[in-house]
């Protein structure tokens, strides 16, 4: 389905053509300091949160106009390296190799965290439990039918249909895919050796349906009976899709919830580069097994100090006041430790 893509492009074009002149006109009319417009692009996973931040922040800071296009983490990183944006977002931290390509220097700030849920569409089934090896084998293409004995064994009393499982995965280069496949590889030691891959774009079993963006995957699940796919929690919640309770490292079946995600993110970290490995397969009791941090990428040096100040102020605001807006949208506020770490990284952006 390409419609969301085109929709996004049109929205971006409209935002550009309407937003900029309007902002300029306002600045002239008010006769205050010149207005600054910032543009960002990247992950679809945190997009609803960043859009909320932008709305609230803009209302309080009339001289800044911002836009964020949700184009997927891979495309966000590409635009960040090409320096066509003021900031980018990704659910996977920038690799050192990519960071070296950024001439202005990269500061990667953990900005929020969230759950990746397995949303499904089976008429009449609103609760399902998936053991670790089972969900890995569903996405590995080993388990092909819903009435497979291994799924049935974990769901005694649930009438599972005798239908094929339709897997839905991401078409575009995605940090959500990266976080999910990291978890699959940790859960199933044979994942990598079977050639299924870990990363932003992987070779899913050939019958997998591919859709662009978290919203594309959620919409595809919504219209396909017997489908299962991985999306950020909020996207599944907005479409009313049921989500599977997954078995975590310590053996419990955990349905996605804010408290379970907080447990998953509770591992203590001292350095930013430990963040990602710390949440791949959380060991805490009661922790939801698939969580991910989401990052904002800033440049260390901006040509215009006013622009640098605006980006820094926005991100600092997001790390402080912004966190509370995450809860209602299904994200997990960062712990005080991580926020301190993020602020440290934010301080490396030159004033």
């Amino acid at each position, binding site marked *: *389905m390409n419609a969301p*893509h085109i929709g996004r492009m049109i929205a971006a074009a409209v935002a550009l053509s309407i937003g900029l002149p309007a902002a300029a006109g306002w600045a002239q009319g008010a006769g205050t300091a010149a207005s600054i417009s910032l543009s960002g692009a990247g992950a679809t996973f945190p997009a609803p949160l960043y859009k909320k931040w932008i709305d609230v922040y803009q209302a309080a800071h009339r001289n800044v106009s911002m836009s964020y296009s949700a184009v997927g983490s891979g495309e966000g990183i590409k635009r960040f390296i090409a320096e066509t944006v003021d900031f980018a977002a990704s659910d996977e931290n920038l690799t050192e190799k990519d960071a070296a390509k950024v001439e202005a220097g990269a500061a990667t700030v953990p900005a929020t965290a969230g759950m990746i849920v397995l949303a499904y569409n089976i008429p009449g089934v609103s609760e399902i439990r998936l053991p670790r090896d089972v969900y890995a084998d569903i996405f590995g293409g080993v388990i092909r039918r819903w009435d497979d004995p291994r799924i049935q064994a974990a769901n005694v009393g649930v009438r599972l249909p005798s239908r094929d499982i339709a897997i839905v995965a991401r078409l575009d280069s995605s940090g959500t895919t990266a976080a999910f496949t990291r978890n699959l590889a940790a859960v199933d030691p044979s994942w990598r050796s079977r050639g299924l891959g870990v990363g932003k774009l992987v070779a899913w079993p050939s*019958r*997998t349906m*591919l859709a662009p963006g978290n919203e594309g995957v959620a919409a595809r699940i919504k219209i396909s009976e017997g489908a299962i796919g991985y999306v950020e929690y909020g996207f599944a919640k907005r479409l009313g899709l049921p989500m599977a309770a997954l078995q975590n490292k310590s053996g419990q079946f955990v349905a996605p919830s804010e408290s379970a995600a907080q447990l998953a993110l509770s591992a203590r970290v001292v350095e930013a580069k430990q963040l990602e490995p710390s949440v791949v397969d959380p060991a805490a009791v009661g922790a939801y097994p698939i969580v991910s941090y989401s990052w904002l990428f800033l440049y260390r040096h901006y040509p215009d100090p006013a622009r640098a100040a605006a980006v820094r102020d926005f991100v600092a605001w997001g790390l402080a006041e912004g966190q509370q807006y995450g809860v209602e949208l299904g994200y997990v506020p960062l712990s005080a430790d991580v926020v301190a770490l993020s602020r440290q990284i934010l301080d490396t952006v030159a004033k």
Partner: protein
Amino acid sequence: MSSHPFALAASPDAVSQAPGGGEYLVDRAFRSLAIAAACILIVLVAYIVWKIGGQALPAIGKYHVDFLVSTTWNVQEQKFGILPGIWGTLYSSLLALLIGGFFGLTVAIFLTQGFLHKRLAFVFRLICEMLAAIPSVVFGLWGIFVVIPTIRPAANWLNETLGFIPFFSTSLSGPGLLPAAIVLAIMVLPTVAAISQDALSAVPYRTKEAAFGMGATRWEVILKVMVPTAAGGIFSAMVLGFGRALGETMALAMLIGNSNQVTLSLFAPAETLAALLASHFPEAGPAEVEALMYAALVLLAITLLVNIAGIGLLTLTQRRISGKA
């Protein structure tokens, strides 16, 4: 004026007059304009092929024929293959032509062979042609919200009871080959119906009268005289319909399911070349763009070949009907 070659041939008060200098000029200008337009058309087609071919050249050098027979599309490992795309394009278009062709021809017979009052037939024809004006994206949405839920129970029943037949070997979850083919069939229907109607109307009335005069029944006249006589035109209607189905993008991108597999099952998600191009172009890197250009070239080649083959067969059948060797 007196030097004009036809000046003396016509009397000044006759209805038809010898062409004046201005008319000659207009005639010349129009003739050269027409020739120029025709040339530009040929140059344009050649330019498109050359340009796409040029951009695809690096990929052709890298992947050779493997590209056409391999089934993976893996950007990270730079392995590209479009067999699922070629298969899905041909399979969905053939299915669409089968359904759309049958109904298109039936509609054409119904509207031209005196089943309806002329005025009513005209209204029907108009409505049928209005189908062609519906935007592709609307067809796509209609497919998702109407066609899929409607055919899903029947498809899943077929899968449960006749699942051993390869065509029904998977259950239909949502987007897939059959919903795509059904919507595609409706999209090619106006093309097929309109051209078939023209072909049937072009058969001289005397032919029909002669057949009736020999004591043939209405159905004998239609099936044994009218349709075979108009076969050339009907066939070209089918080819044009097929060409339309091959290149259709938006509705298919929404309905085919974007799944990179080669399957006989009517209910499985699949991929077409046009849908592949539409969904991968927005964020393709340089290597993927080359591969996509190669895929575009293949799609172009398939559509050109189908049209050339269609026109060739059309002339062949027409010669046979008209009796000229």
